[in-house]
């Protein structure tokens, strides 16, 4: 049986027990090869193949969910029986919903193929992966001042996913992902500084040169040497383009439709209001060929189209799946799984100009922790980076915390023009007019 037939037989088993059940069956097969190198020697190599089935059963408004890695016919029958029993025991859930004919995409599989997410041209073996990781490590070690690499890793993943629902939706997608990451240490003992660089692409040919990734990480670690602590105060804070995407991710959480419906986000009353500074535009585009977040539709089957979330500072849309859309009296925009390829558009000023206007402030290149409170927008993170003095980036700084409120930070943000479309969340370097910086 192929995956689609397994899904169909599973739906059949459920229907035999509960004829009026609405069913979603998902089969995924994932493969993952990873090699890690240390000091020129392979440290570990992993090769995995996992296949599992996820079943969701909805009877009236009652829902049960289960998954199994045992795909034998006997196990699938048991899974169907157990999941129906769960749904029948559960109280009604107002978020229980399945895409009906007309709501779901009918050509999702064909559309997925046009996104070019599966690299059929390459098959990486251990030897080749090891060679790539060693090249990356050597390039990092060649940077003067670098002591060692703590990690030099290359990974290759593939996945095949098939979704079938009892309402008639079906999609089969395949994708690949190549990843390289290197973490480099400069200095010794208590003066150690660490920096990492990585790249991740759907096609091996698009992956950044291994030596370039290694060199970048090495230079980053060395640049952090000799960090000082600074006195506490309020000052302008610049977020490097490598770290600014984290702010966008927090924004995406704050406009998640379910968080809005539950009143859990500080932006819940902000639709069509200014939420960012004028000039800032934020777009989520699932149609980018080879994009890490590209998809024809969400897991519910609703088409995901390009969406302008913020236009010239004004909030234009929530991220909606069927359940959150129903709660809010709106229509799903195929974002039940959140954003796809999210980016903030480039501004008009160069990064240097943006920094040149700052008499005293900090440029943040690393943030630790993940502390922000969605309901209030309160933001507080451990951070490190560089001091900005008289418009110039000067000494590295360490062990500071930066704090503020996301609402104010977004409204007082200026974007530079150094946007690079690299991962699934991208932003240019941004400046926030004033934040509380705590140092020594």
């Amino acid at each position: 049986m192929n995956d689609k037939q397994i899904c169909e037989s599973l739906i059949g088993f459920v229907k035999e027990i509960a004829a009026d059940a609405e069913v979603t069956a998902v089969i995924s097969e994932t493969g993952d090869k990873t090699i890690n190198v240390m000091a020129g020697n392979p440290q570990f190599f992993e090769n995995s193949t996992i296949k599992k089935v996820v079943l969701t059963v909805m009877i009236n408004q009652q829902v049960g969910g289960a998954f199994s890695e045992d795909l034998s016919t006997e196990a699938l029958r048991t899974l169907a029986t157990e999941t129906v029993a769960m749904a029948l025991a559960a109280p009604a859930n107002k978020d229980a919903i399945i895409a009906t004919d007309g709501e779901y995409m009918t050509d999702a599989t064909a559309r997925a193929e046009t996104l070019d997410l599966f690299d059929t041209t390459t098959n990486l073996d251990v030897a080749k992966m090891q060679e790539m990781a060693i090249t990356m490590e050597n390039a990092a070690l060649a940077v003067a001042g670098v002591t060692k690499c703590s990690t030099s890793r290359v990974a290759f993943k593939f996945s095949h996913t098939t979704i079938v629902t009892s309402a008639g939706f079906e999609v089969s997608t395949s994708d690949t992902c190549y990843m390289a990451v290197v973490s480099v240490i400069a200095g010794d003992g208590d003066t150690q500084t660490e920096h990492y660089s990585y790249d991740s692409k759907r096609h091996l040919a698009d992956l950044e040169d291994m030596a370039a990734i290694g060199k970048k990480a090495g230079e980053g670690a060395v640049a952090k040497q000799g960090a000082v602590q600074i006195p506490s105060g309020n000052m302008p804070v610049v977020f490097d383009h490598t770290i600014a995407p984290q702010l966008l991710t927090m924004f995406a959480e704050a406009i998640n439709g379910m968080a809005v419906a539950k009143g859990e986000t500080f932006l819940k009353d902000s639709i069509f209001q200014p939420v960012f500074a004028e000039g800032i535009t934020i777009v989520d585009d699932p149609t980018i060929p080879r994009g890490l977040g590209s998809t024809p539709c969400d897991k519910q089957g609703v088409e995901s189209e390009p969406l302008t979330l913020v236009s010239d500072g004004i909030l234009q849309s929530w991220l909606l799946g069927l359940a959150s859309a129903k709660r809010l009296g709106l229509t799903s925009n195929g974002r039940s799984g959140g954003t796809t390829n999210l980016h903030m558009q480039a501004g008009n000023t160069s990064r240097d100009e943006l920094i040149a206007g700052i008499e005293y402030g900090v440029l943040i290149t690393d943030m630790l922790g993940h502390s922000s409170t969605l309901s209030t927008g309160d933001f507080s993170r451990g951070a490190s980076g560089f001091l900005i003095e008289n418009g110039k980036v000067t000494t590295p700084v360490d062990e500071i915390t930066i704090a503020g409120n996301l609402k104010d930070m977004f409204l007082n943000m200026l974007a530079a023009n150094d946007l690079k479309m690299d991962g699934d969340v991208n932003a240019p370097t941004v400046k926030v007019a004033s934040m509380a910086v705590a140092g020594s």
Partner: protein
Amino acid sequence: MSSPNDILAEQFAPLVAIATNGADDGNLFIEKVLAEDVTISDGQVVPSYSISEGFGLDRVVNQFQVCAYSSIITPEQVRLAATELAAASPGNKTIALPPSGGGGLEFYSPTSPLGKFDLPTRIKLVQDIDAYIRGKDNRVQQVQVSLKGSMQNVIVVRADGYVVTDCRPMVALTIDVTMAASVRAVYSGRETYDNIFANWQNTADEALRKADVIMQAAPCPAGEMAVILGAGDSGVLWHEAVGHGVEADIVRSGSMFAGKIGERVAAEGVYLYDDGTVSTARGSLNTDDEGTPSQKTLLIEDGILVNYMKDRLHGRFYGGGSTGNSRRQSYRHRPIVRMTNTYMANGDSTTADIITDTKHGIYAVSYGGGQVNPMTGKFVFQVTEGYMVRNGQICEPVKGATLIGSSSDAIQYIDLIGNDFAWGPGGTCGKEGQGAPVTFGMPAIRLPKGITVGGTDTSGGQ
């Protein structure tokens, strides 16, 4: 008559021998996990159930670890993986296995939590807790209650036919309450649901208490001040900021504790342990995931670093053998060095003495999250429950506080250690993308300097 272990040994040991031919080490790890969960969020109930099963086959030559994982457990699949592994890392070593036996430990009952309380009973419990919390305080905006139970059955098969098994139950009640901000209270352990059904009010009341404290909290002033870490929850700082740095694999990649065995790393009076043998604790194991029996390991003795946590690979690399700290999230993750239950032992002060002796500082009680760079020891923790201390008195609660510093530096400054040891509720530790259940604990301690307090109030007011 053959026991189930004899049958497994007969079926798989010859395949493990192929996988470990010419290697230093290796074994077959077979796992089956049954898990169930009932969650109520925003009043909506979702039950779920899962069956996860597969094998991980590992081969180690020198320090090169080669692993194959599959969700299909058949001799054919294992044989295929064994052949691939041997080809990927040729070697001419002779495997040296420790003597068989030493197992048979039982730090928790092998009884599965699944089955005793049926789904309607578990649904009713999360609904009752939801109603209890909403009924008790009308400022409550959101409640999420999750009741999880699982049974992990683990089998380790060695090339010499020795088979080790461990049946690991786990239950967890997690309650999130949102008033001004979201707070969490957890009860968890390697046991059945009985204690949760009997005592869930304690966990619910604790969540309500924490939420109430935040409602009254003022913005935390920023700057350098004395930091008092409260007993229990603060153990997360030892786990994150020190524990990871003495995991032998992190040491080998050059952590700040590398090469410091026998040296002073912390103030006098500091004793740090990792102990996988604590009865029914979340982090306990009868045997680790390489089949090594659990043990209690002294890491820091009176401020001197005396040992690392090791798996078998690092037991060979650093000498002294495994400390029983090899763990994997599941069959599809490689075994790495992990903590179990990590704690700092009692000193001779009391929390009251420590507070009385402090002129200006913060008393940190519980934490919303933290992160540490295990290589450099730089850490940051978000304090979800904390109080200002002035002139020997606990004053107003503060919000938005973060603790930031460098652990190798900070733990030298500890000047007072309480005698009020407590365990925190424990959690799931993340490392290399793998989650592992752990707990941590400590008495109250004071650091007069060495930790920066970050907050939203930089006015400099006292």
